């Protein structure tokens, strides 16, 4: 009788409890606390104040360069584009911090997803952690795309697909809806570093690799701001602002401002490797001394 009771107790209570412990222990691998507000540190420059033709640090195809040179920033002034926002890559290119929340399965208490909150011109990104299937290629493509994530060692690893055709720089450098973005989130102390590897079979010769660091913020960040289209000088029905091939008036502006070689400004692959520095050694002439806005938060440094 006693044996029978013990057996039933083990079968019905102890074993399931231990099984849960085993499973829970298996799920708890190597995760850091991602939830919270992360303020941008901003010591690294990617967009150089969004000068119209600045493709530094990019490896563009001829098609990508031609498309970028056709872009006119006034496109964003048209009613239909004002609230369009920027694509997923803007997470590490924009000036804002990250506000991360999580959603739990109400039954298992496992993390279903992380959400990185929206900014006024960037849509929220949901990183699904529940191994759900990725949608087919015909599924809806959005600015944020579809992102699946998992933990790998000490990093949160994620991949975004199903992005809407858009931009990888605010200067109009394009990205197709076939692009994918691989993310890695590392945390060291109070510093979160986000590594982005963007791949586009049409417009990028090599993946665009950007890393940006954020610091844990004690005060919650909140960038929500409703976008309301307003008149910015362009009437509905007017033609879309653009430049025809060879007619972009800003091609040489950035290079002249900082004495930069044109092939670097226009995003050629070879300019991303150390050999290029050696190549321009004998031709590069530094710009004249900085006279205004030279410090940490300055904008344009030199006047043309």
């Amino acid at each position, binding site marked *: 009788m006693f044996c029978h009771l013990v057996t039933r107790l083990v079968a019905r209570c102890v074993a399931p409890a231990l099984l849960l412990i085993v499973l829970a222990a298996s799920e708890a691998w190597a995760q850091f606390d991602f939830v919270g507000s992360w303020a941008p540190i901003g010591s690294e420059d990617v967009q150089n104040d969004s000068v119209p033709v600045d493709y530094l640090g990019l490896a563009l195809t001829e098609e990508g360069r031609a498309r970028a040179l056709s872009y006119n920033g006034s496109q964003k002034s048209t009613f239909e584009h004002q609230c369009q926002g920027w694509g997923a890559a803007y997470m590490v290119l924009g000036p804002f911090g990250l506000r991360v929340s999580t959603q739990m399965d109400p039954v298992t208490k496992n993390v279903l997803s992380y959400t990185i909150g929206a900014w006024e011109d960037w849509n929220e990104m949901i990183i699904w952690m529940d191994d759900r299937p990725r949608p087919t290629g015909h599924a809806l493509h959005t600015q944020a795309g579809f992102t699946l994530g998992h933990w790998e060692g000490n990093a949160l690893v994620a991949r975004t697909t199903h992005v809407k055709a858009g931009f990888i720089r605010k200067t109009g450098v394009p990205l197709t809806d076939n692009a994918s973005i691989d993310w890695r989130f*590392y945390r060291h102390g109070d510093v979160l570093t986000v590594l982005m590897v963007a791949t586009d079979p049409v417009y990028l010769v090599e993946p665009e690799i950007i890393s940006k660091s954020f610091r844990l913020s004690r005060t919650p960040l909140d960038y929500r701001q409703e976008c309301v289209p307003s008149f910015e000088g362009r009437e509905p029905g007017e033609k879309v602002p653009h430049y025809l091939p060879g007619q972009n008036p800003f091609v040489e502006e950035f290079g002249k401002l900082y004495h930069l070689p044109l092939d670097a400004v226009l995003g050629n692959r070879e300019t991303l490797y150390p050999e290029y520095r050696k190549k321009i050694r004998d031709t590069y002439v530094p710009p004249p001394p900085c006279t205004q806005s030279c410090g940490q938060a300055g904008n344009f440094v030199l006047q043309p």
Partner: protein
Amino acid sequence: MRLRLAAAAVALLLALAVPVGIRAQQRGAAAAARSARDSAPIDLTGYWVAYITENWRYRMVTPAKGEYRRIPSSSAAVPIINAWDPAADERAGNQCKSYGAGMIMSVPGRLHITWQDADTLRIDIDAGTQSRLLHFSASPAATSASASPSWQGDSKATWERATGQNAGGSLHVVTSNLRAGYLRKNGVPYSERTTVTEDFDLATLPDGGRLLLVNTVVEDPVYLNGPYVVSPHFKNESDGSKWEATPCSAIW
């Protein structure tokens, strides 16, 4: 019979459940007993090339004299920034000031990472022909009160292990005892009281290649108002065929 089966089930579950934490501790203890090389959770060795997609204008060319954008330089640094004279640095034998540990990982070039011995990771850099020694155990230089500051300072390294099935981890390095140097080629200074904290992480690229990410925090109570944080990254190369050691230059 039933009791035996139940006992066996409990024993099996306990064997699976309880040691999850203990095994991690045992791994840690075992790793501590082995050398840093033998217990390395990630393999950083090999050739790596800097991939300059960020701060291009500050790294690939020498920026304008006097510009220190995105660096939290203190007011004490500004006169030094404005007085930068690369020719004077050359004459004074200070041509390596922009190749010190505060900046060297951002200099366009290649790294060759090897184990100098079981507890010392060595990073050779072709730009400026510099070498860094990352000591996992206390180095003689670090324990000597008379150790003089140097461009690469004294680096203490530790592995930060990820627990779990996929394991891996990071390399954490703290460097001090530095000779005063520059954070940028155009003379933005850091002092001898600077501490450089770095975390080395690996990532796999979509094409199967490997990427090394070095998150770097420079803290200087003299010439910085706050931490200066950058995260240069490097692509793995299969061999050293593109290695080209060049001397330090203050002018270029």
